[in-house]
């Protein structure tokens, strides 16, 4: 006999459009996979040794819910060095990847506020995370010609209309566009003026050659920073992310983390810890390589008459592309991230790598 209860459950979930939004792959599955969230780099043997040594020495048991202390410390130190914050390890919660960080911040910090204002164009994981519970979500207007970053006017209007929690990406997960130092200062002023708070996705900040201003540096008591640990270190599929936030926000998120996972995989945490110690060695070299590859891709795209979206993150390139162009990429077996999943139809995102030029050549 058919179950009405099950039918009702299925109907309830089907009505939740957010659950059906596709996500990009966590990491590149091959050279022609240019749609994934993270580039692929072979793991440094020291990262493998860090994880393997920990497992072989019996670090196979539950660890603290917020993460192993040395990794929390390393994350705090990296954030402070990169963005001028003053986080301590008590401000850090290690998560099972970036999506868990999105979920915990939007659901748990979000629960403290009547509404949340989010970019109209953002990583699809944001809408998925928000979609799990009914709450008022306001869409911040953006400017496509500025890489889909929400406008300062739109942010100010949302705050003036009573919204007290923002979610912002800088760099944008679609275009790589970033807020300038003066824009970040203005957003910090707006937060202070309205006693508001923000969740700040800075996961791609390490791919901005000239550095990336952090909202937390100017408003640390009212900002939660989220990101991968560490984007582009080869650990994408190991799923380690982090939240840096004031301790009174960490506490309820830690409780929820306990409820939904107890802790983040120890092997992944020890690998991320080992990566934290060597990440600086490869950063400049990879950034320079990506810069050269991206610059060449931009030139070629220009020659092809493609409409490139502005972006400062060297790891990706976003451009307008119609169905015919997408068809050519698909025929060539090249994966890309579809802009409509981010909220920007007719746009695609390509990872920067050895195959990016080849991908663009198929469009000639």
């Amino acid at each position, binding site marked *: 006999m058919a179950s009405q209860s*099950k039918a009702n*459950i299925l109907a309830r979930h089907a009505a939740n459009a957010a659950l059906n939004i596709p996500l990009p792959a966590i990491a590149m599955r091959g050279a022609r996979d240019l749609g994934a969230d993270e580039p692929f780099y072979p*793991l440094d043997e020291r990262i*493998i040794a860090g994880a*393997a040594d920990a497992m072989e020495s019996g670090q196979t048991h539950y660890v603290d819910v917020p993460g192993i202390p040395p990794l929390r410390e390393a994350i705090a130190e990296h954030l402070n060095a990169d963005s001028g914050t003053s986080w301590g390890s008590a401000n850090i919660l290690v998560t099972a*990847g970036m999506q868990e960080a999105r979920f915990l911040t939007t659901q748990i910090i979000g629960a403290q506020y009547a509404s949340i204002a989010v970019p109209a164009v953002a990583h699809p994981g944001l809408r998925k*995370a928000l979609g799990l519970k009914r709450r008022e979500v306001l869409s911040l207007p953006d400017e496509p010609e500025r890489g889909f970053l929400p406008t300062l006017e739109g942010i100010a209007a949302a705050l003036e209309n009573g919204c007290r929690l923002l979610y912002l990406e800088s760099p944008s997960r679609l275009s790589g566009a970033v807020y300038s130092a003066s824009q970040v200062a203005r957003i910090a002023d707006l937060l202070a003026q309205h006693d508001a708070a923000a969740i700040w996705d800075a996961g791609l900040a390490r791919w901005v050659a000239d550095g990336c201003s952090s909202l937390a540096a100017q408003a640390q008591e009212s900002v939660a920073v989220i990101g991968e640990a560490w984007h582009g270190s080869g650990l994408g599929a190991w799923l380690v992310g982090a939240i840096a936030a004031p301790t009174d926000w960490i506490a309820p998120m830690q409780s929820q983390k*306990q409820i*939904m*996972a107890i802790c983040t995989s120890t092997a992944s945490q020890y690998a991320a810890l080992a990566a934290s110690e060597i990440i600086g060695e490869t950063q400049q070299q990879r950034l320079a390589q990506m810069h050269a590859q991206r610059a060449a891709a931009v030139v070629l795209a220009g020659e092809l008459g493609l409409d490139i979206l502005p972006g400062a993150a060297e790891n990706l390139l976003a451009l307008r592309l119609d169905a015919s162009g997408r068809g050519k990429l698909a025929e060539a077996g090249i994966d890309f991230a579809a802009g409509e999943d981010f909220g920007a139809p007719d746009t695609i995102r390509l990872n920067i790598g050895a195959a990016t030029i080849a991908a663009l050549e198929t469009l000639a």
Partner: protein
Amino acid sequence: MSKKKPAAGTNLLYQLIAEARSYDDVIVMGRGDPDFDTPAHIVAAAKQAMIHHQADVPPAAGLPALREAIADRVKRVNNIDVDPASEVVVTNGGQEALFLMVLAALGEGDEMIVPEPNYNTYADSLAFVGGVKVAVQTAHEANFRADPADVRAAISDKTRALLLVSPNNPAANVISPADMRVLVDIAIEHDLMILADDIYDLFVYDDFVHTSPASLPGGKERSLTLNALSKSYSMTGWRLGWIVGPADLMARVVALKAAISGGTSIIAQHAGIAALTGPQDAVEMMAAAYARRRRLVLDALDEMGMDYGLPQGGQFVFANIAFTGMDSAEVAQRILSEQHVLAYPGSAFSKERKDYLRMTFLQPEAQLVEGLRRMKLAMANLS
């Protein structure tokens, strides 16, 4: 932002764990973390995967090879037939599986029947979705058996699901095959979903028999069944579990999984393949050790004159401390502070269980003996 409240439930347990860490000579009989390290062949396989499978990127549902291994396992151990492609989802441990099952099956105002005492995270997860726990009380005198008649009596027009954890945590009751048959029939009759937690299915003692509700006629199409490698392979830190269930529901489970965490650590998944497809002698060794330790703990409790429900499965005993006249949180605190032994207060599992303690057998025998000796001293002081 958050108001300070006295520690309760899971927070109370974490407060005790934090204090326990401050004692060099502490004996932990609280947390459900086996003292055995993960078997060496699993660690070795994980290391090989770190070297040779760096480019693997699993879909949110998990690596196909792991889902195959899980399908084989649930067929072999639980007699549940599942399609690995559409009826298995890999999770970040049993805990994420638990959260996902509740998220998938229940919504605001929906009631779930929960035989009590039960693992506290079910109540926490239910609270997240705005669901309502309807407790069915059990007694240690009846070894915490949930009487199907009581379950039937608790059903209302808002009941949507029935939670069946067997062996139960913390009460260690195993639902008999006959009771399980009746409970599945009740679920069919009232069109309830079954959330089944089989995480301790390999640890069943004496002549007790574990039965998965999804293995019974009419059970599979309405059951979501979780399990994990944490307890059976001593892999608590890796965070690897799974849910199996009917394909239509599992499609929603994987969508929810994508929304809350996106995936499961690739290296934990390779370790999981090694665990499920490799030699099983370590599991047998651990099961035998727990059986010996269980006897040792029960003998000590008998000596202390404490009542308990016979642990028919699992890795712990739920003992009655009503004779102390004190709340279990206070008793656990005093045992910890005075004797440096960590046991979990029953009140952390259910507010009706303030006169129970949960004690695990997850320490080497010499430590258990010492822990029980100290417990005896503490109890003598309390009574």
